[in-house]
């Protein structure tokens, strides 16, 4: 399924991406294909275990060696699958950046966060003596951290969850990536903090004209950031299209079920909520 909305060559072209574990016996991702054009924002939705995060990790080359990855992942036309760790590491954090759900996994607990942001910059740019600190402070301030000097000199544990996620966002953006992969970036945050972080990601993507692959189980969150969306189920892409069409008038029964269960606001309080089984009969019978 191609979702190229903009003209020109895709930034990222994924074709027939499959992943298997246990020497090929356990296939967990089945022939996933999509394109992301420069500046395009593609959402990836589906329930837990549908293969969303796996897709992102496979694209980034972050799966363990025990994973058998086949198909093709092209970045600006160059094949990434089979590339060595050194070549991938050069891309990651510069042209390709990623924000995860739990910021503590991305932060070193023993290092002040300002230094961690600076390190990501230095790793990918030749020495800019004396110029990194102002850039780091500007970056921290651009993600809505009000007192960047104090934040930069704090350890991760001294910050709140929302502040940490903003620091991680600053780290991901410090090298002006062309593609930002966000894996449930606001799932662990309170709803008011989530609203702020989403607005920041939106602004940053616009400012940097960066493309985005945005993974979330929350359809409404995806609708706020993305223009196009893919629906995953059991390791496969089962549906896709523009956010407006897919969420307003879903045609695929599974998508219709997902949208219906997410629209709590349309159901009379106290009445029975629609479930996916009302729309789509999955292989697994019985209550989940």
């Amino acid at each position, binding site marked *: 399924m191609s979702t190229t909305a903009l003209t020109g060559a895709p930034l990222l072209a994924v074709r027939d991406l499959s992943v298997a574990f246990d020497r090929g016996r356990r296939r967990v991702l089945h022939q996933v294909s999509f394109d992301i054009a420069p500046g395009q924002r593609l959402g990836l939705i589906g329930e837990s275990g549908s293969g969303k995060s796996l897709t992102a990790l496979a694209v980034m080359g972050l799966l363990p060696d025990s994973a058998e990855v086949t198909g093709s992942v092209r970045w600006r036309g160059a094949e990434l699958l089979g590339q060595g760790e050194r070549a991938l590491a050069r891309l990651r954090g510069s042209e390709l950046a990623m924000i995860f759900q739990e910021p503590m996994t991305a932060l070193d607990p023993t290092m002040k966060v300002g230094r961690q942001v600076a390190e990501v910059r230095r790793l990918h740019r030749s020495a800019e003596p004396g110029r990194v600190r102002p850039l780091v402070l500007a970056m921290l301030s651009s993600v809505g951290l009000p007192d960047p000097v104090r934040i930069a000199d704090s350890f991760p544990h001294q910050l709140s969850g929302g502040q940490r996620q903003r620091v991680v966002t600053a780290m991901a953006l410090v090298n002006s990536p062309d593609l930002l992969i966000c894996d449930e970036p606001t799932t662990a945050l309170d709803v008011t903090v989530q609203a702020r972080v989403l607005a920041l990601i939106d602004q940053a993507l616009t400012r940097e004209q960066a493309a985005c692959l945005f993974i979330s189980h929350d359809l409404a969150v995806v609708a706020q950031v993305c223009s196009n969306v893919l629906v995953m189920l059991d390791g496969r892409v089962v549906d896709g299209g523009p956010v407006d069409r897919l969420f307003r008038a879903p045609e695929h029964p599974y998508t219709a079920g997902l949208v219906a269960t997410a629209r709590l606001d349309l159901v009379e*309080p*106290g009445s029975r909520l629609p479930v996916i089984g009302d729309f789509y009969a999955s292989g697994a019978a019985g*209550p989940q």
Partner: protein
Amino acid sequence: MTSIPSDRAEPGVYEVRDVTRIFGHGDRRVEGVAGVSLTVHSGERYGVVGESGSGKSTLIRMLAALDRPSSGRIEFQGRSIGELPDARLGFLRSAVQLVFQDPRSSLNPRMKVADIVTEPLRSRLLRGRTDVPTDRSRRLAEVLDAVGLPASAARRYPHEFSGGQRQRIAIARALAPNPQVLIADEPVSALDVSVRAQVLNLLNDLVRDAQLTLIFVSHDLTVVRHICDTVAVMQAGRIVESGPTAQVYARPQADYTRRLLASIPTLPS
């Protein structure tokens, strides 16, 4: 949904008056809950909404007597519970049951479902109380059926079940001693949306059929709007607004409630 007039004279199941819970002291003194008063009536579905650190979990821990107030008074069915020793809380332990957010951590992985579900019936505090079922195998079958799990589930371990099914097991355990009040702390927050709908439907049916009083804690105003007829919005340990859910949802009075509602992401309509 039954509407419950808030001004009725009869005392509530819970009467909470000016309850404060202080953690730490000196420079690190924090008011987890600060001067909270509320009344929960029999059969009411009372929602407590707030973000992390708002004090909602501390409040319900005190309602369940898992924690004690630093000051103020909590009455359950007319009896003050704030200062009673554990040994004298049998009446509360059988009448009030809890369901937590993450069934993975609240179910003992080394126990079979049958033992997990009937554990409250074997508790020293609950055994022998007239309101607690004595025929354990019969009660096990009843509650498994009530939550939509097959009888064969009894012989299996929690890890053999999906997240939604594990939450059903936790609900079955809570129902086992025939409680009057169910306190649910973010019971669907760890679940996928499709499973969330199933568990909310189940809770709705169970509360209606067993005429339970429900205290439902959530960060999610949309879920609370669906389940509860009354809601209290908490921020920084205080209740900033409370009232009938439909009213608070449609015409929020407190700035914080308005901000909370405005922050909920919505789908295009």
